[in-house]
C-alpha cells in the first residue's frame, strides 16, 4: 500500500456549526490518508460526522454556520485549505465527485437528466452541446440505463429511485474523477437495487481506476466493498483498519460492540442481541475524556479524563482507546 501515491491526505480536520443551542462539534480532528485506486469505507451512526467530514473536504457546507478548520487537506499534493472558492469549484465535480444519499432530492426536478449530465461536461471539459450530448448518452449507457439516447430528455420524476441513483453516478463520473465520494448512496434504496448499484460502482471503479470513499451506516455493504474501513463516533475516528482485521479482530470497544449487536447468521435459539446501552454524546457539550465512556463496557478512570488519540497498534491498524480489550487493562 505504501508505494502507492497518496491522493488525499486529511490532517486534523475539525468542523463546527454555530447554532442557537451552542457550538456543535461535528468533526473533532480527524486525519487519514487515501491512496490511488483505494476503496475506503467510512462507517458510523447518524450524527457521527461521517458525511460532514466529506462535505467539509468538498467545502459544500454553508459558512457560517459551519466553520471548517484543518492543518491541511492535501489532494494530489495541493492543499485544498489554501484554495479560494472559485478554485474549489473547478475541482468539485471534475477531480472529486460526489454521489448523495437521496436520489429523489439531489437531482434538479425541473431540468432533464440529459441537461444535468451535460452540465459538468460543458463546464469542466469545455465540450460543446453536441459532444456533450453524445458523451452523456454514453455515460447513461455505461451505468446501465436501457435506451439511453431517448432517456436523456426525461425528467427525474420519470425515473425510478434506482435509475435516479444511476443517473447521479453518471453525472459524478462525467469528468472521470480521481476520487469519488459516495455518501450513503444506497440507503434510500431496496436491497436488490442496492446490490445492483454496488456491483456497478465496483465495476466502474475497476475500469476507471479511481479512488472511492463509501460512507454508510451499514457494516454489511462495507464488508464486501472496501479495502480499508474507518469507524467514526461523535466526530472522532475511533478505528481505522484493513477490512479483514476490522471484522475479525475489532480492537475498539465501540466497533466490537457494534459488530456484536448485529444478528448472527447462525444463532442459538433464544439468544439475545447484545446492545450498546445509552446514547451518543451531545455534540454541543462534548465530554472531556473519551466520548464513548458512558456506553463503554471497558471504561477505566483514565478514559473519563483524557481523550485517547488515534495510535497505531499494529501494521495499518489504528485505534483511539486507552484499553486493550483483549485483557481489559490499560495499554
Amino acid at each position, binding site marked *: 500500500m505504501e508505494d502507492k501515491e497518496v491522493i488525499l491526505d486529511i490532517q486534523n480536520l475539525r468542523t463546527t456549526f454555530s447554532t442557537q443551542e451552542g457550538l456543535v462539534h461535528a468533526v473533532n480532528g480527524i486525519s487519514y490518508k487515501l491512496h490511488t485506486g483505494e476503496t475506503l469505507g467510512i462507517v458510523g451512526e447518524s450524527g457521527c460526522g461521517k458525511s460532514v467530514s466529506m462535505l467539509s473536504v468538498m467545502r459544500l457546507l454553508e459558512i457560517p454556520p459551519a466553520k471548517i478548520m484543518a492543518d491541511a487537506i492535501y489532494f494530489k499534493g495541493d492543499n485544498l485549505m489554501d484554495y479560494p472558492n472559485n478554485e474549489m469549484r473547478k475541482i468539485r465535480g471534475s477531480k472529486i465527485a460526489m454521489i448523495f444519499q437521496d436520489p429523489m432530492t439531489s437531482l434538479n426536478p425541473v431540468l432533464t437528466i440529459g441537461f444535468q449530465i451535460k452540465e459538468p461536461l460543458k463546464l469542466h471539459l469545455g465540450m460543446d452541446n453536441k459532444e456533450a450530448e453524445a458523451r452523456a448518452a454514453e455515460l447513461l449507457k455505461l451505468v446501465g440505463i436501457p435506451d439511453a439516447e431517448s432517456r436523456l430528455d426525461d425528467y427525474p420524476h420519470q425515473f425510478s429511485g434506482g435509475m435516479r441513483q444511476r443517473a447521479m453516478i453518471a453525472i459524478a463520473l462525467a469528468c472521470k474523477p480521481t476520487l469519488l465520494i459516495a455518501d450513503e448512496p444506497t440507503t434510500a434504496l431496496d436491497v436488490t*437495487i442496492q446490490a445492483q448499484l454496488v456491483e456497478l460502482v465496483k465495476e466502474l471503479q475497476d475500469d476507471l481506476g479511481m479512488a472511492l470513499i463509501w460512507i454508510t451506516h451499514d457494516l454489511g455493504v462495507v464488508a464486501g466493498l472496501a479495502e480499508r474501513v474507518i469507524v467514526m463516533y461523535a466526530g472522532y475516528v475511533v478505528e481505522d483498519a484493513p477490512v479483514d482485521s476490522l471484522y475479525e479482530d475489532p480492537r475498539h470497544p465501540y466497533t466490537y460492540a457494534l459488530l456484536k449487536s448485529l444478528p448472527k447468521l447462525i444463532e442459538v435459539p433464544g439468544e439475545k442481541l447484545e446492545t450498546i446501552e445509552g446514547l451518543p454524546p451531545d455534540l454541543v457539550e462534548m465530554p472531556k475524556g473519551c466520548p464513548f465512556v458512558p456506553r463503554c463496557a471497558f471504561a477505566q478512570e483514565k478514559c473519563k479524563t483524557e481523550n485517547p488519540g488515534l495510535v497505531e497498534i499494529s501494521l495499518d491498524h489504528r485505534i483511539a482507546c486507552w484499553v486493550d480489550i483483549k485483557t481489559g487493562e490499560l495499554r
Partner: protein
Amino acid sequence: MSENNPLVRVENLVKHFPISRGVIFQKQVGAVKAVDGVSFEIKKGETLGLVGESGCGKTTTGRTILQLHKPTDGEVYFRDINLTEASDGKLRELRRDMQIIFQDPYASLNPRMTVGRIIAEPLEVHNIGTPNERKERVQELLRLVGLNPYFVNRYPHEFSGGQRQRIGVARALALEPEFIVCDEPISALDVSIQAQVVNLLEDLQKEMGLTYLFIAHDLSMVRHISNRIAVMYLGKIVELADRDTLFANTLHPYSIALLSAVPLHNPAAERERKRIILFGDVPSPANPPSGCRFHTRCPIAEKRCEVEDPEFREYEKDHWVACHFVEKAQQKM
C-alpha cells in the same frame, strides 16, 4: 377458541387504492393493487415476519388486517371473529386487543402532547380506570419499556429516536393487547439502537405472551425475531415458511435473489459469495405484469410464467411457495 386455532387468519385479502382523474367529475381510471390476494395465519404467541421491498404492500397488509384500511375483498379473522364484517362498535372493542407500532418514531407521536398523555390516550378512549389509575399505569408502562417514569411530562422532541420508539411501544401496550402489528419499528433507528428495541420487543413477548406481525425490509433482523417468515412481492406472498427452512431451503427465485442481496458482515464470505443481481426495477403495482408478477425480473422465467399466475401452494409441509418452476430455481440459481 381452541388452542390450535390461529389467532389471526387472513384469507385472500385484497386492498386496491383507486386512482382518480378529474377535479369535479371524478372518475376512477385505475387502481394501485397494493395487496392482491394474500392468505396466511398467525398462531398465538408466534412472530410472523413479513418482508419485501418498498411498495410491495407489506405495510398495507398490516394496516388492512387491523381494518385501518377497509379491505377491497377477502376476510380477516381475529380469534375467529370476522373483522371485515364487524360493526364499528365491535371493532373498537376488538382494537383493545390488537395494536400497531409505527415505522417512524418522529411522525407517529403528536408533538404537542406530553408523553404521559400520549400513552394514556388509549386508556382514555376506552374508558379504562380513573385518572389516578391511568397515571399509575402510564408510569408502570414507562418502566416496562425501559424509560424513566419521571419523563411523563416531557414532550416527544426531548427524546432520541430509540426512546421515541419505546414510547410508541408503551402506547401499543397500554391496553394489554394480544396481537401487535410492528410496522418497520426499527428501520428509522441506528444500528446500536436497533438491537435495544428488538430485545425489548422480545422480552415483552415472553412476559406477556404477545403475538407479532413483524414487518421489515431488513432480513437479518427479521430472521432474528421471527418464527416464520413470509416474503412479499408486488402485493402477493411468494413464499412462506419456517424461519430456518426459508433460509436453508429457499424455493422462490425472488426469495433466493433477495437473500443473496443482503450484505453479510463478513468480508471474506462477502467476497466469495455469488450474488444474484436482478435486472430492472420493481414494476408499478398500478399495472402489474401478467401471469406471475415476478416474471419480468426472474432469471428462470418461461413462457408459461407470462400467462399463468402460479398458485400459492404447499410445496413441502408448512413451506408455501408461488412458482411454476421450483425445481428449476433450485438447480439454476
